[in-house]
């Protein structure tokens, strides 16, 4: 089970084992990681699972689709490395990834 490290805005780190096939959002919500809400349950319809992916991991997270890019309009402090955690599937390729959370989701 790949290990994912979710880093809160204040630097608090949450190390979570997320089963392959689940999304980064599912993994965070199931282990009650603060800072990722996932209001719509993974429908790519709410922008409350916004995270930042470090440049070196971007290639392993897959490309974002147009819908995700559009929905990110509603996220707070969007940057070039912003993604919605519900759209990234966990696999062994993401073992040890550190993802960073924005200041807020609403």
């Amino acid at each position, binding site marked *: 089970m790949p290990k994912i490290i979710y880093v809160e805005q204040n630097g608090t780190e949450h190390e979570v084992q997320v089963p392959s096939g689940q999304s980064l959002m599912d993994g965070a919500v199931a*282990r*009650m990681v603060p800072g990722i*809400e996932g209001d719509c349950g993974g429908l790519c*319809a*709410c*922008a*409350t699972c916004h995270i930042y992916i470090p440049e070196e991991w971007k290639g392993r997270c897959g490309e974002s689709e147009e819908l995700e890019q559009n*929905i990110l*309009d509603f996220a*707070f402090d969007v940057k070039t490395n912003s993604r919605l955690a519900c759209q990234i599937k966990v696999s062994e390729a993401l073992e040890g990834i550190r993802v960073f959370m924005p200041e807020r989701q609403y």
Partner: protein
Amino acid sequence: MSFIESKAVQLLNDLPEALLITTVTGEIVYFNRSATTQSGFTHKEIIGDHVSRLLPQSSRRKVDVVKWFGRWADNPDPGQLRYLTLEGVRKSGEPRRYQVRVSRSEDLGGIYFVIVLRDVTEEQEQTTALRHSQLIANRIIAIGEDAVLSIDQDNNICFWNQRAEKLFGYTEKEAMGANINMLLPQNIRDEHTTSIQTFSSGKQPSRSMGERGEITGQHKSGKIMPLEASITKTYIGDRLVLSAQVRDITQRKKVEVDLAEREARFSAVFNHAVEAIALLDNTGCVLEINQAAREMLPIDEPVINKPLWGLPWWNSSNGSEQSEFEERLRGRFHQAMLGNTVHTRTSLDAGSDALDLDFSLTPIFNNSNHVLYLIAEARKLAGS
């Protein structure tokens, strides 16, 4: 023209929802009465103005309101319309959040967006506050020392925390939906089912660990464990959910057994010593007394918590001799309380047997060098 058609403009204005109409570039051309009430802007102030006056561009979000009106008008995705809200502002400057419904109208001599704005500020704040308090409660449960699990009315597990995983060895995926019997040794399953039924149908809402006494659980590996559990019932609508907080008491039981064994060993030494021994607190009262000391007392009566000098040492009717003896004992106690070991010989008139004793009082100090206890010892001298 029907009654409705003739009154359409008036009805639109009287609509209980805040309604506005804009051009495709965002210029407000219509604003109904509910919209003025909701926003605080009058018709005069808002008509002809850009919609961004009502729904300003955020400095920290990219959302282009007019572009999204177009998207939602063409593809009113219910998920997005439910979860994506727009930041708005009242005339007073107060920030608000609006849920939006948009349609495109091309029958008004041009193309327009017909927009309904529902103010969900308070609703969203309450939902957020509730989610956050749930998150705090869930995180407390997750890190708690006790396993927490819930079962539904079919006795199937419907909540399982990390400690439960550790205690019973089943992952959340393995446990969820499984029958509670999986966590119990075969021989107590029927009894446990009956006990659950009794509790479910009873009037008591909860039972704490102490009330239930020890129970037995079974680890995935087959290992049997002594457990304690608190249980509570909650009706969610007409569905009953029983939740338990479960604690492994293997270690505690081992400590209890070890302690009892040590206690038994000390008691053996203490009670079977030839010397008379008593443990006193720093007021001189007896905390413990051994068998040899009890046998020195001519009268068998309770002595615990009585001062050493108040015990029935003296069997003689000579009151002055007795009070002189008590005074000497008290004096030695005060000497010992100063931190000195007191060693003396004394005689005890125990009725027919006069006893010559070798008597000592030894102070025991705490970490702050204050006298905490005194050990009183007496040994019969040879020939007495």
